[in-house]
């Protein structure tokens, strides 16, 4: 597809950013997002978001609401900016020196890019699950207990035990690991590790969970488990998920946002996006003409 440039962020991770704009049907003329990007009871509200990596602009004028207890899926071809946008939502892009974010990003009316705002409590409220399962090289128990410990949620062992158990139960991992909580988290299978990471995230009771392609490193059975889990979690949490799998987006999300070359093309109810897309680019993508 389009050419991408790899820029290394501060943590050494490769970040794919868009380089050349390859001719696609009238992409430069798109200034409006079609569909319904905004909603009534928005948990997070983003307006006119621009993201730059150095001189290159990676996100153009994105406006999107994420409603309370809603699952929003973000889809689009590689390098379209969906991961970049997701990482803006809890300021994980701060670790990239050359990354600059403009526009208004609000969590319940609070500007998250306010210089006075502390990112530590923000990230406690907006948790993140990453593409590759990344448990700490510690025991299963310590993995889950780490967040509550650093945030000082409890000082009592019994309470901490309870948090660990509920988190693991919510991540539907408890039954598999309850007899070996002290064994290393890295010894679990890939799918179990990812569920451990989800348990670790929900242990600090965030309001929003961001998921950056959480199933891309997993086999279909583990993927199915995670998808099931996402559905359960949406009862208590607001979830934004980036995915490469359109089937996954269709299965788990309420609304779907289609990104293309840094622009938000279309946001609609998931069913509508996959059955009757409004924009020709969305249609081209979901029918597999590119992606």
């Amino acid at each position: 597809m389009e050419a991408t440039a790899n820029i290394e962020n501060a943590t050494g991770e490769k970040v794919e950013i868009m380089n050349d704009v390859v001719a696609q049907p009238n992409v430069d003329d798109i200034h409006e997002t079609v569909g319904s990007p905004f909603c009534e009871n928005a948990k997070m509200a983003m307006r006119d978001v621009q993201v730059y990596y150095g001189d290159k602009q990676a996100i153009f004028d994105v406006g999107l609401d994420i409603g309370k207890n809603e699952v929003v899926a973000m889809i689009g071809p590689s390098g379209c900016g969906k991961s970049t946008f997701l990482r803006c939502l809890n300021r994980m892009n701060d670790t990239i020196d050359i990354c600059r974010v403009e526009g208004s990003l609000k969590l319940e009316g609070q500007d998250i890019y306010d210089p006075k705002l502390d990112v530590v409590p923000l990230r406690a409220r907006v948790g993140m699950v990453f593409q590759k399962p990344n448990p700490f090289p510690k025991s299963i128990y310590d993995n889950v207990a780490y967040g509550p410990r650093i945030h000082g949620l409890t000082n009592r062992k019994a309470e901490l035990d309870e948090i660990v158990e509920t988190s693991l139960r919510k991540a539907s991992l408890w039954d598999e690991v309850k007899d070996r909580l002290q064994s290393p988290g890295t010894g679990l299978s890939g799918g179990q590790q990812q569920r451990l990471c989800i348990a670790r995230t929900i242990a600090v009771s965030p309001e929003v969970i961001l998921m950056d392609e959480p199933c891309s490193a997993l086999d279909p059975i583990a993927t199915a488990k995670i998808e099931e889990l996402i559905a359960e979690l949406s009862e208590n949490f607001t979830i934004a998920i980036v995915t490469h799998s359109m089937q996954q987006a269709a299965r788990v999300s309420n609304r779907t946002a289609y990104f293309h070359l840094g622009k938000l093309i279309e946001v609609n109810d998931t069913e509508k996006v996959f059955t009757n897309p409004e924009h020709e680019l969305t249609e081209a993508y979901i029918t597999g003409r590119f992606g």
Partner: protein
Amino acid sequence: MSSNTQSSNKPSTIDLVNKNLAKRYRAEKRFRGYGIASILFGLICLVFLFTDIIGKGYTAFVQNYIQLEVQLDADTLGISDINDPNQVAMANYMGVIKRSLRERFPEVTGRRDKRKLYALVSNGSGFDLRKQMEADPEILGTTQSLWFMADDDVDTYIKSYSKDGKVFTGRTDEMQQGWIASLIEADQVESRFNTVFFQNGDSREPEQAGIRGAIMGSLFTMLVTLLLSFPIGVAAAVYLEEYAPKNKWTDLIEVNINNLAAVPSIIFGLLGVAIFIGMFGMPRSLPLVGGMVLTLMTLPTIIISSRAAIKAVPPSIREAALGIGASKMQMILHHVLPLAMPGMLTGAIIGLAQALGETAPLLMIGMVAFIVDVPGGVTDPATVLPVQIFLWSDSPERAFVERTSAAIMVLLGFLIVMNALAVWLRKRLERRW
């Protein structure tokens, strides 16, 4: 691809490949041969080095003793009151030893011959006798059969005597050789493990010289180096890797650190003289100052290896920590440093091993002085193992040759222990992710 599509006079692809295959394999064999040859060369050098050092040095671990019947009468010793420590300390012990030598060889007359006779035993024998007297005052007035250290020339002669046909006479003359033969015949010469070598500090007399002073000096110097360089190095590495902005100043610092790692160590010695001794007026020859100079020398190594270890921590772990709301410091302390620790420790130990073998900068700050006392702390004048080796290798006495090699063996032993420790620590602390 098939041959009938090609013109018949052209060889097929597979023939060409086969033709070249033999050539490729030969080249590969040669390539592997170069590697094996260099490893063999290294091994041979190592074997030569070790056989030479061990062959020269193993005799230093034994010392010959001579048995004498000593009459410890109070008059000759000059002790009128055994309870007076001053008298016990000042008594004429050498006198009674000399008398027993004269009695053992009554045929010796004449001042010059007698002096040669007295030279059979170490001139430190008087001190040994005093120690025995102090430990057990009861022996005053009795006649004791005691063992005394042979003088270094005699010791060297006896060792070469027992080793092979070629005898190294050294400074002993025929008359002395006769006496030694008579002593050996009477079973009055005994070879014992050389405890003195491990218990004493340096001495002008080879038979009384030991490496304990140098070992303790090295230990104290290393302690100072470790305590200073590891925390400073790790802190610098953490700042440069995690916090420092990327600009020309940090680039400059980075280039300088890399260059400092390659600066000849004697330059650090000069720096130490100028700053620690010249500007701050610290005394010379102290392990404290030596440790500080070696800290300057070791820091670049530790910083570079620590930075590499920190860089090697997978970014996913950092993201995981940041993603659940750890602050940067919590991320570093809870995740990055524990994972980087094996690498940082390995770097530190290798840096210390390098510092342990360092001579030149320590010569500059006066750790080359002749120091007899075993140091008891970082502020006692001391010397270190490599400097001790340097000093002994420069001494004319034959007996120092074997002691030099023995000291090298001790130093190599320390280095092997330190490297083994580095490997063990790495294995122990390494965690998989």
